[in-house]
């Protein structure tokens, strides 16, 4: 509904009631007990940014060491710990929690026309678990001066106690198991929210494409995390209790580690990139000023990428000596997964061509995303040529490939999204010229850092080397990459400086500065705690482009229909057609998520230090906390 329109006194009274019902306590107390998906999204945002900083520093140390041959900036152990931590931090503590926890949490209920996620306390719980796992991991490293040094995929037998003594690998394993609980819980929450909490009329063919991406990500997390969890459990059983899974002498197999890891690891890369697709498909229609072309194909493609992505894992193992038939199967499957991606690329491009694009900062970042994604995608296709993969795997060529995808294709849309939704979240507009400049610097920095890696990989430079000799032809490329990394850092600082400055000094932005199509643009900037004064009704995927529907919403606000100001309520829908199904009473602020997460953090902390009995006691307290959590029940739901 149009937000700036004059409302009648009864409507205003309803809004006041909503404000009272939905307001949370002030100050720190409010943040610790919050169940508001927007606040949880912001908590995720700032926490993941801190980890991005840590991962970035780790990267800069790596690049500085590699600037010249035979450098002595870092000793081999420090270097090995840094590249391990860089990978682990960026993947598990930055990109997934940022895209799913920050962007997903903030935007999904808004885009669905709901007042919160399906399980608000579970949402807070997933954040506190995430924070706990990060604090445990980094705190453990700091306290013990031991970090894993085996690489982010930590192959067996290098990961066993004999070759990696000390606590580093244990931190890695237990920390990631713990982190996985947070992601699993979040995934369940997103699926139920997207299935059940849609605004009336939002049938599946009217579901915004960002939500399709989040749905694909959530299902992927649900099915991809278990193999990793089991692999890590096996590892800890072997390291701590002497079990045998990966050692040949007692009937184990080191390749078992790899199979289970990559069963997780490949879907993981689609989990990383799918939200970026979702952000791109949100920004493009807005700035191209037209609907996304081939909407059903794009939605289907997002789901297909996730699905087919489960069948390709052994392409990470082409050099291990598997049977040729096996290799060929996985190469064929890997080629199949290309097609849903290329459909999307051309849908984006033709939407821009047939629209009237305004190349403001968000769209520039999407342009950069497309450039990098295509390059990364092309090199990805090259890896499906098995003999070529067998030359270039484990070299800088593959480092180039995945950084083009992870940084170029997954992170660029994040920056575009940060600019795009900045006015919605803060109520202020960012500085446009500065933002565009920040794009160009970041783009050049990214290209200069990662493109030469293709070349130096072809020239034979393996990955994960703490130094390299001069005279093999790698020197100038490495130096350029380091220079590029510093430029890239400069670009990133420009972006964050812009956002920080604009937060306090930017001009006030209204509800709808870009005239985007999805529901978040129909409410105030920032949105009130209850998101919408009246639950909107939807007849297309671009509700903000349907003025008659928004007018009808305003009339319903006046009449008190679906305002739901009698309690802390939102609507539930049927899964396929989005028909109004029932009114749900939602929980409000609660200590239980934080308390339960703290107990679980304690469990893992004591497992790490091998105090199994104390860990058991905390398991008991966690169980009691869960009982407390479920003590009070919501009111009986009303029929719709």
């Amino acid at each position: 509904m149009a937000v700036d329109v004059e409302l009648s006194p009864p409507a205003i009274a309803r809004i006041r009631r909503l404000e009272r019902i939905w307001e949370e306590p002030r100050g720190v107390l409010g943040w610790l007990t919050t169940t508001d998906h927007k606040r949880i999204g912001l908590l995720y945002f700032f926490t993941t940014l801190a980890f991005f900083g840590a991962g970035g520093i780790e990267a800069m140390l790596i690049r500085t060491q590699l600037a010249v041959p035979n450098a002595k900036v870092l000793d081999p152990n420090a270097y090995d710990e840094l590249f391990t931590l860089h990978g682990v931090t960026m993947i598990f503590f930055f990109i997934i929690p940022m895209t799913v926890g920050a962007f997903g949490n903030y935007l999904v209920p808004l885009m669905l026309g709901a007042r919160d996620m399906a399980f608000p306390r579970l949402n807070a719980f997933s954040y506190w678990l995430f924070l706990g796992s990060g604090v445990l991991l980094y705190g453990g490293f700091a306290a013990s001066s031991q970090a894993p040094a085996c690489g982010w995929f930590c192959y067996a037998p290098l990961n066993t106690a004999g070759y990696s003594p000390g606590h580093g690998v244990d931190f890695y394993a237990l920390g990631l198991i713990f982190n996985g609980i947070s992601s699993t819980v979040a995934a369940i929450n997103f699926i139920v929210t997207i299935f059940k909490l849609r605004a009336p009329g939002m049938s599946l063919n009217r579901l915004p494409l960002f939500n399709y991406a989040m749905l694909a990500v959530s299902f992927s997390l649900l099915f991809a995390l278990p193999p990793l969890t089991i692999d890590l459990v096996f590892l800890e059983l072997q390291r701590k209790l002497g079990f045998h899974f990966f050692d040949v002498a007692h009937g184990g197999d080191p390749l078992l580690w790899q199979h289970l890891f990559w069963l997780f690891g490949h879907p993981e890369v689609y989990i990383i990139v799918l939200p970026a697709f979702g952000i791109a498909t949100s920004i493009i229609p807005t700035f191209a000023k037209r609907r996304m072309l081939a909407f059903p194909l794009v939605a289907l493609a997002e789901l297909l990428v996730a699905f087919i992505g489960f069948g390709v894992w052994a392409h990470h193992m082409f050099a291990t000596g598997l049977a040729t038939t096996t290799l060929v199967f996985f190469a064929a499957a890997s080629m199949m997964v290309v097609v849903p991606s290329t459909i999307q690329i051309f849908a984006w491009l033709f939407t821009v061509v047939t629209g009237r694009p305004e190349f403001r900062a968000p769209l520039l970042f999407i342009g950069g995303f497309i450039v990098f994604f295509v390059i990364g995608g092309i090199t990805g296709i090259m890896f499906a040529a098995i003999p070529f993969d067998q030359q270039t795997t484990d070299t800088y060529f593959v480092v180039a490939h995945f950084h083009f995808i992870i940084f170029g294709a997954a992170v660029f849309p994040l920056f575009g999204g940060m600019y795009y939704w900045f006015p919605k979240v803060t109520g202020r507009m960012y500085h446009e010229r500065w933002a565009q400049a920040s794009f160009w610097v970041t783009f050049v920095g990214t290209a200069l850092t990662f493109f030469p890696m293709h070349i130096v990989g072809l020239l034979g430079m393996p990955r994960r080397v703490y130094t390299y000799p001069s005279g093999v032809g790698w020197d100038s490329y490495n130096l350029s990459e380091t220079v590029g990394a510093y430029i890239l850092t400069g670009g990133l600082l420009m972006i964050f400086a812009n956002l920080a400055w604009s937060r306090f000094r930017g001009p006030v932005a209204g509800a709808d500065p870009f005239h985007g199509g999805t529901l978040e643009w129909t409410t105030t900037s920032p949105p009130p705690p209850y998101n919408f004064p009246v639950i909107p009704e939807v007849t297309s995927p671009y509700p903000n482009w349907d003025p008659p529907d928004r007018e009808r919403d305003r009339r319903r606000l006046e009449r008190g229909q679906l305002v739901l100001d009698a309690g802390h309520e939102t609507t539930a829908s049927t899964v396929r057609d989005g028909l109004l199904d029932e009114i749900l009473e939602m929980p409000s602020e609660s200590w239980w998520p934080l308390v339960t997460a703290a107990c679980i953090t304690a469990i893992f902390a004591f497992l790490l230090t091998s105090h199994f009995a104390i860990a058991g006691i905390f398991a008991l307290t966690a169980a009691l906390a869960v009982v407390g959590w479920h003590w009070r029940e919501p009111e009986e739901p009303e029929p719709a």
Partner: protein
Amino acid sequence: MPPALHLSPGQSSVHPASHASQEISHLWWMMMIAGWIGFALVVFLLTLGWWRRNRANLPFGGGDRAATAWIVGLGVGVPIVLLSALFVWADVFVINSTAAPREGSTRLTVDVIGHDWWWEARYPASGVVTANEIHIPVGTRVAAVVTTGDVIHSFWVPELNRKIDMIPGRRSEILLDAEHAGVFRGQCAEFCGLQHAHMSFLVYADPPDRFRAWLKAQQRPSAAPASALARRGKDVFLSASCADCHTIRGTSADGEVGPDLTHLASRSTLAANTIPNTPSELSDWIRDPQHVKPGNRMPALGLSPDALKAVVAYLDSLR
């Protein structure tokens, strides 16, 4: 402070010296060209979008239906055709050239066992044992049979063939068939711990008679020390703990932890191709291995300067 190692041997996958790596290199260049064409198309479309930003349809007319047809054509049709072609070329044909050599199709076998952080090389037919440097005859199909003694390593000589992982409990085979004489650099390509960066090796493709001469020399037991200094060196070697880790055939030293040193002086590099094999480098290495290659398994033995000089003289005589 070890001097930088200057190497003329190459490690480039686009500088092939065998049929197998030639096929891969060719594949690479074609994929690269096709890739640039695809990329150019995307850049073209982006530029078109910007150029025609004030007009809301396709350049030659046509509304959403036409645009969707383009999307399906370019997004589904073209990839399917190109990918199928690539699949057949690379994964049906080229893969035959890079697959493990068939039983009985090779004239020579060399077993390579990966260790943290050096390469053990054995020629089963002739009983030759050496380390970090492999010799093969030019224009001859040689099977390298690889495994590991500890963690996963990867055997990789880019100019001769693809890489093959060395996995505990498995023996994997790869073909080495150099088309011309030369020296080729190989490097471990699976992260294996602290000194993964310094685990490389050299493959010498020699003309057949030179290879035979090399093989014969390697078969002989170690040379007896000629000078008094070298004799003293041999005594130091056998009495300090060197023999616990190293073998010198023809002496009582039979340790199997570190490289076989029987013909150490015939090799061009030390410490898995990390430093050149000169007396001064060898001396620095023995005096303080941890300084050259921190974290490697060889301890400093605390030899006196005289003892060190003697050992170096002895080892330098083991051609």
